[in-house]
Every structure is written in C-alpha cells, then in structure tokens.
C-alpha cells in the first residue's frame, strides 16, 4: 500500500486570484451602503436605513438593485436550468428528486417520456408501474420546468437527451462554480460525456454510440465498460474535483484544458495537492491566454 508523507510547513496555501473581487466581499451583517436610493435584492436586508448583507458573498449591483451573491449556497433553481438529481421517493403521480436545493424537487408523471416513446394519457396502470420506470436511488438528468411559490422546482424529462443515467460517475461541487452556458451536455474529444448540472452535480460517463430514438430515455446499457474508458472517466472526474478545490469555474473548456494538462501524470496521482496545483496552474494560464 502506498503511503504519502508531507510536512505541514511545505503545504501551499491557495492564493486569491483576482484582486478586484476582494473589494466586494461582504460577510453577514456588513453594511453595503447607506444610500436609501437602492432597492434591496437577494442576500440583503434593510436596517436603520442602511443595506446590510445577510450572506457571505460578493456584492453585485445592477442599476438600482443591490444583491449579494453567496459563495456557498444550496442550489436556487431557475426555469430552463439543467439539473442532475437522485430520486428519493416515489409518490402519487410524482417522484421526489434531490437536487441539493432547500426543498425537494418534484418530477410529475406527466412530465416524463414513457418507455416505448408513445404519447398517450397517463392511466392508472402507469401510476402503478411508476416504480419500474424510476425508483429510489436512480439518477436522472432533467430540466426545470417551473418554480413553485415556495421555491421548490418542478422538473421534466420531455426530451430524448434527458432521462435515467446509466454507467458513470457523479461528482458533487458547489452550484456557484457551474458557469451558465447555452448547453450543459458536452461530448469531450477524449471519449466522455460530461453533464454539468446547474445544481452542482456533475455526471461523467463514457460517450454512448448512437442513441436509439424509440426507447424514450430509459434503456440502460449494462455492458461492462472497458478499462481505458474507465480511466478517462476517472481522470476527468479528478479534473472536476481539482477545479472545484481551487474554486475555478467549471465549463467544457476549463475541464478540457485541465484534462490535457494532467495527461503527463498517472490518474491515481492526480489527487495529490502538489499535482493538483500544477495541473490547475497550467490550465489557468492557458485559459487566460485564450482570453476567457
């Protein structure tokens, strides 16, 4: 068994990268401004005519609206977001899904594609067979259809790219690190598919061949995955975790650059602190060079 020994004195501390962000950092209770002309947004409250922050984060100002974007938070859903979630309960005509938000999200029976892909009214039979489609513990990818009054999300999987997830790895990162993009499903050239859920759940799996149109997103491929594919999945997963540890934004380019920078190290060494720092530094330099 391999044992690593490190002296605490040589441990490198992460340095904050962008200095201008630091001037806008607030902690709960800090006064943001005494000007009463501003409207208060998320993460702020008014006291004695002054705006205070209620969360620890970065102050953002849009015209007359002041809000504080928290650094560490549960996922707050918006309509149209892609999420990766785990089924917790099977209930009456709905499934309860865990998406790392403050309340459980809901997936209605009428919002899923039935296996076989037919379009028909949902009957009693369908309700009884719900557990055969999705049961507790299954992972799904879905889109947020609407947000209820109390903030809980209603999901749907009414497209063939959503549905039950098969063989792959799930990584949990903070939702604030996922960059909002036009698409969150990326097929990387190294042969893996990455789904960056807006809720911080990142799914990495080997790229499937042709997706069959008739199955409606429920057929799962249980053939054993070859070792080479599994290594690539593990490497991409380690890249995602390294980026999250260094608080860098996660998007397809940053993951790809980190992957290419990590190729000279064996997969199992990637989680060592010094290797992580080196790989992330290389990726960061490349990203800055490209101007993103």
């Amino acid at each position, binding site marked *: *068994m*391999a*044992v*690593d*020994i*490190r*002296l*605490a*004195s*040589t441990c490198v501390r992460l340095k904050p990268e962008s200095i201008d962000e630091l001037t806008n950092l607030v902690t709960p209770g800090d006064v943001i401004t005494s000007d009463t002309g501003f409207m208060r947004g998320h993460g702020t409250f008014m006291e004695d005519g002054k705006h205070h922050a209620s969360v620890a984060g970065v102050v953002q100002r849009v015209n007359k609206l002041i809000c504080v974007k928290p650094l560490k938070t*549960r996922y707050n859903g918006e309509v149209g977001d892609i999420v990766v979630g*785990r089924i*917790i309960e099977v209930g009456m005509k709905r499934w309860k899904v*865990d998406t*790392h938000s*403050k309340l*459980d999200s809901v997936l209605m029976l009428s919002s899923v594609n039935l296996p076989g892909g037919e379009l028909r009214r949902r009957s009693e039979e369908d309700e009884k067979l719900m557990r055969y489609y999705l049961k507790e*513990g*299954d992972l799904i990818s879905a889109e947020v259809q609407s947000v209820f009054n109390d903030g809980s999300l209603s999901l749907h999987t009414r497209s063939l790219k959503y549905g039950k997830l098969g063989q792959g790895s*799930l990584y*949990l990162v903070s939702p604030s690190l996922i960059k909002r993009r036009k698409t969150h499903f990326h097929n990387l050239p190294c042969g893996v598919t990455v789904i960056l859920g807006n809720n911080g759940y990142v799914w990495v799996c080997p790229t499937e061949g042709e997706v069959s149109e008739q199955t409606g997103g429920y057929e799962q491929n249980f053939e*054993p995955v070859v*070792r080479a594919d599994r290594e690539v999945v593990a490497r991409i997963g380690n890249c995602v975790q390294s980026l999250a540890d260094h608080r860098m934004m996660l998007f397809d380019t940053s993951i790809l650059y980190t992957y290419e920078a990590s190729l000279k190290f064996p997969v*199992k060494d990637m989680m060592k602190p*010094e290797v992580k720092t080196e790989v992330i530094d290389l990726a960061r330099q490349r990203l800055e060079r490209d101007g993103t």
Partner: protein
Amino acid sequence: MRETPLSNCERDFIKTAIAEKKRIDGRQAYDYRHVRVSFGVERGCCMVNIGDTRVMAQVSCQVVEPKQARPADGTLYINVELSPMACPSFEPGRLSDFGVEINRLLERCLKESRCIDTESLCIVAGEKVWEIRVDVHVINHDGNLVDGCSIAAIAAIAHFRRPDITVSGDEITIHPASERDPVPLSVHHMPICVSFAFFEQGKYLLVDPTDKEEKVMDGRMIIGMNKHREICTLQITGQMLLLKDQVLRCSNIAVVKVTEITELIHKALENDREERAKGGKYGFAESVPKNKVTSNHKVSAPVDMETVEDHVTSTFSQNDDVIEIDSDAASTSESDDSVVIMDKGSGAIGLGGPSTWNVDDEMSELKEENKSNTTKTKQQKSDTNIVVSIDDSSEEETTEILVEPSIQKQKKKKGKV
C-alpha cells in the same frame, strides 16, 4: 434541510461488505465503538461519546405538587432535544417522529422500569415532591443515538445530587449546597439500551450501527436491559420480521454489552468521585486528553491486521524486530518498502501493488513481469530499527518514521536535493 442521499453504489458496497462479515470501519459485527463517559463540573452533567456520536445529559430538580393518582411519589421527566447541530436533517422546534421515538423509548426504559426510587423523592405527601428532570441534548449524530441517550441519561442520574431537606413539623427547609452536602438519588439499577441493526430480513445483524449502516439497514431492535439480566424495554422497528430465536440470541449479546457499559459508567463515576474528594480538578476540561506532539498516544487501528503477521514472520524469520506494517498481505511481495523522498518535504512509502480491479488479460502479463523484477529488490536485513528524523528548513515540524536502515542510503541522497 434534507441530507444528500446515499448513492446506490455506497448502499451496495455496505450491504455486500456486511454479507462478507466486514464493516466499513473495521469493527466486528458485535463490537461497540469506543465509548467514553465524562462528567462536568456541575452535578448531574454527563457527556457520552460513542465513536463520533455525542450526547449530553443534564439533570435538575424542582419542588412541585405530586400527581393526583400518586400523592407520595416524585416524578421523573425526560426531555430529548435533537438540535440541527447534530445533523442537518433535524429541524429546530417541534420534535420529529424520530425524536418522539427516542423520547418514548427513554421514558419506558427509565420511568417504567423504576430505576429511581420515586418514593424517596417525596417531601410532604400530597403537597410537595421532587421532580427530577433529565434533559438530553444530541450534539453529534453518527448513528446509534438511542444507546448514547440512554447511557448519558442514566449516568447523569447516578451523578446527580439533590439538595438535602429537613422537615420539622410543618416547616420544610431546603438546605443549599453550602450548608449541607447534597444527597444522591437512590438508583436501584441502571437500565441501558443496546441497538441491533438487521440486514437482509434478519440474516445479518450488527451491534452499534453507524450513520451509514443505519441508512442501509432493514430494521432495528432495541433492548433495554440492566446488568442483572432483566429486560426493561424491547422495541423492533423497520420493515422486517424476526424469529424468536434471533430475539433470544440478541438478548444474550445485550447482556454482555450491558455489563461492559455498566462497568464503564461505574468506573467513570468512581474517577469523578475520587477527583472531587481529593480536591483535584474535575469536569470536561480535565477529561480531554492534551494534544501535544510529544505525547505519543495513538488509537489502535481497528482494521484487521491478522493476515499480515503470517507474511512478516515467514520472510523475516532471521530478524527479530518487526519492520513495517503493510496492510495488503496478498501482493506485498511486489512493493518496495523503503521511503522514497519525492520532493522537498514529501516522501512516499511503497509504490502500491497491482490494481485489484477487473484484471484484464494484458494486465496479468504485466503482473508476472513486475513480480520477477521486484523479488530482486528485496531489502537487506539488519539487526536494529533506526529512527530517522526528516527535518526540513523549519525546526518546528519534524517527521519521525520508524523504518529500516536502507533509508540511510536514501537520506544521503536527499542531502544533495
């Protein structure tokens, strides 16, 4: 707030491990985690640690009117608080179902078994009696809260002293602690709850489940018993059916556990009593071991090391001293055991064996090659162990590794780095 649910892989892993008689923290099926009972400065304050689960109980007393039905009996009131500090799924305020279950169990275990003599709590029959109140707070939840709460409650009750009273005619004087020494409660016996977790419809059973094991279990049985082999309470929850011989077997296991834990509580009470009698310092601050670098206290690893010994004695038969501990006994012949200094301030022992995952055909050929190479690099035997300090530029941090002398060659190389 809901916790992140356990993934299917983790569930399957824990269940498969239990089917092979292995627990993820290395314990045996009937082993408890390390139980620690400590008392505070105030009388009646007790903190119990079962592994990472922490529960604190505080006993207080008050003079009240007795119940109509029992005018000559004092009352015992138990209150369990599950704070969100213990687990994010505990909500503050109203007690959840789980909290009500623990509360009810403790009440049955302590009140209905008559562990305290309530008649001795009577001051004036029909008018004034003592009400003993036990507040149990859960500080950290890592599984098996019921056991923790019951040990904390009964230990706190045994530790508590109530003020002394004198009744002269119609006048009752309650003496403060400064005038007269407080009087202990009369505890008849110490009922302690032992939890059993069942898997696969009662086929496998574990004592003292951790948080992860609780999430995966089918059902649970709680036996409240005292050391005189009297069962005070029995409860089965969850989705499972048990046979009667399983219940009997569990009660036999519970006897052993309860005896051990009662011993532990008595010892802790003794220690506390001695400290207080001597005039020494007592309380939580004193019971915490000091974390000094030079105080060499290491909790022994609970992982099974038995299989390693055979390997060590066979290959190092000439050498008397045990050299190193290598937990992968099966394929250790390949790995190199001396310390390799990688960089300034970091080193590595061993390069790891071959992967024990899905071994493909091409991998097995590589394994043969490796085996033949590394058998030549077996380290030389010598007579003594050498303690080597690896210093870096700063004097504060030094790492001491007990290694074999082949490290000396490596150390000389390091001087050039």
